[in-house]
């Protein structure tokens, strides 16, 4: 486990302890079930964007991709398409979206911020337009429903829900990919120094495209999970602002926006911290109006502490060396 992860883990433990202390209901099975569920949903998005951030890029379109996938799913179900086929097609669509982002960024050499900002606007508009901006539900797709939002009772009232199992699969694959495979190594290398990676025979463009594909794909998966979790889609709102939470989770979890750095486990914990905060705000009884402020402050505090600790460590190290030398 790397040092960044320890920082965010401490933050998690701190808030967890505080909330527990303030409200003993906090740790009851029902609440833990929900906390795990929401954290998993956020973590899946966070892991997706972490891949893009590792390449030194950014993806602002996540929320809109979630909205688009959820809207199209509802639309397809309304028109009685085969649900399973629809799900496959939608995942395909999210891959195509990522592919387009990647191509625009690597081949046309547009900036990721711009491309995905346009994506944010574009997919949101398309969702609204295709659905005529109607709120939609998901009637009668029981199999998929239990696949995407089922629950497995563990003990008492504590259950693990589908998003958690999705997260486990995604996290294991992602961590393995990043730390154990050559492509993960390549991603980190190109995030640090793209030219250097290219001169070492790494096909940087392809890898960057792959990162955007992974990100959009996981946004697509999240879209399906959110849709089934909420049983309802509002084309203009579903997923709005999620990109910011996902990016916040990735950054707080140890990904540097400068690229070349990332830890899957950290992202998961960071996503949990963000959800935990909201849970805590509700349970402790802080005005819901302050929610945003508190999340903002905690993220800022987290990265500031992280930066300061890094500096102190560096200073101490330099002192040790100087005393050992002289």
């Amino acid at each position, binding site marked *: 486990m790397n040092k960044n992860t320890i920082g965010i883990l401490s933050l998690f433990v701190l808030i967890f302890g505080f909330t527990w202390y303030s409200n003993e209901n906090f740790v009851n099975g029902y*609440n833990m079930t*929900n906390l795990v569920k*929401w954290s998993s949903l956020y973590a899946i998005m966070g892991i997706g964007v972490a891949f893009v951030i590792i390449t030194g890029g950014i993806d602002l379109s996540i929320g809109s991709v979630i909205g688009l996938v959820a809207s199209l799913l509802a639309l397809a179900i309304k028109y009685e398409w085969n649900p399973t086929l629809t799900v496959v097609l939608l995942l395909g669509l999210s891959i195509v979206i990522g592919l387009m982002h990647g191509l625009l960024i690597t081949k046309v050499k547009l900036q990721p911020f711009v491309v995905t900002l346009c994506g944010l606007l574009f997919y949101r508009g398309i969702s609204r337009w295709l659905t005529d901006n109607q709120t939609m*539900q998901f009637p009668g797709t029981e199999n998929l429903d239990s696949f995407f939002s089922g629950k497995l009772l563990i003990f008492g009232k504590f259950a693990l829900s589908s998003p958690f199992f999705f997260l486990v699969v995604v996290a294991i694959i992602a961590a393995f990919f990043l730390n154990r495979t050559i492509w993960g190594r390549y991603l980190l290398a190109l995030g640090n120094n793209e030219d250097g990676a290219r001169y070492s025979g790494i096909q940087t463009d392809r890898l960057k495209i792959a990162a955007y594909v992974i990100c959009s794909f996981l946004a697509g998966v999240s879209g399906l999970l959110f849709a089934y979790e909420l049983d*309802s889609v509002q084309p203009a709102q579903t997923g709005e602002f999620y990109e910011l939470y996902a990016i916040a989770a990735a950054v707080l979890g140890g990904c540097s926006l400068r690229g070349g750095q990332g830890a899957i486990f950290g992202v998961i914990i960071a996503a949990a911290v963000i959800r935990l905060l*909201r*849970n805590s705000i509700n*349970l402790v009884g802080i005005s819901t109006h302050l929610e945003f402020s508190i999340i903002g402050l905690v993220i800022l505090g987290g990265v500031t502490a992280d930066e300061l600790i890094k500096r102190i460590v560096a200073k101490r190290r330099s002192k040790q060396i100087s005393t050992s030398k002289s």
Partner: protein
Amino acid sequence: GNNSSNGTNDGDDKAKHKIAYVTNGIDPFWDLCAAGVRQAESELGGVECEIHFPTKGLADQKSIMESLMAKGIAGMAVSPVDADGQTKFLNEIASQTKLITHDADAPKSERLVYIGTDNYKAGRALGRLVKEAIPDGGEVAIFVGRLEQLNARQRRQGVIDELLDRPSQTLGQIKFDEVAKVFKGEKYTIVDTRTDNFVMDAAKSNAEDAITKYENLACMVGLFAYNPPRCLQAIKEAGKLGKIKVCGFDEDDALLQAIKDGHAHGTISQQPWNYGYQSVKVLKSILDGDNSVIPPNKFIDLGYKSVTAKNIDEFWSEKNKMAALGKKKD
């Protein structure tokens, strides 16, 4: 679309009044209103309607209305985001076109008429539903998208006043209670009001967190259409269906189903299709030169409907009928 731009067309087109129906945002509620507009458009004839849903609040609403004025519109029905603040602007609009308000009024402006509901009264009616649902009293939590909107505040106040058995307040002079406060009455305690900013997952997790926090929660009240279904989901997942009652506002299908199944107690419907339908109808009359539709107090109260298990079937089929009718045009 395009044919509207070449003005010299057949007489049929010329005779049609161009009417704009502007909402205050995006909400399932407005979908049903839009259905009513479409229905009136096809039923009444002689009008051509365009419907605008401003995405992001006041600024968007204002610039859309400006564009509509520039385009030349015979009549406009608008639900002002902030009636008081927009008075001046509304007067400017009213000087150039036939302006009516719907859903939310701007009493100080020169709008011709207001078509809507008394949200405070509707809130009190909702409070009565809550009393029916939990006659022995208990803890009540309120869920709402945003409290910026006057109608949301009025509804909330109506619920609180009713549950605390306070005397009725007059619309327009309502004193609003703070958000972060517990209100304890003889039988009923309003423990919390949580906002979600129209974020669905926040709506659901607010409901979940309330269930966690208030073990003795007796009733959840959702003030916006999407709130009651989220409450119901959370209750279901907590295994407390039936134990925690749900009362809501508006007519989301999931809520209606729950009322039918006995999982929710009831809802207050403003019958939004009437908003759309009546707006078009009234505007058309005015544009045809018939001002008799405007009552002296300039308020056409469309009332509200309490929907419970007793009248759910009847209500739901009407809703479906209206929604389907409205959609026929597409």
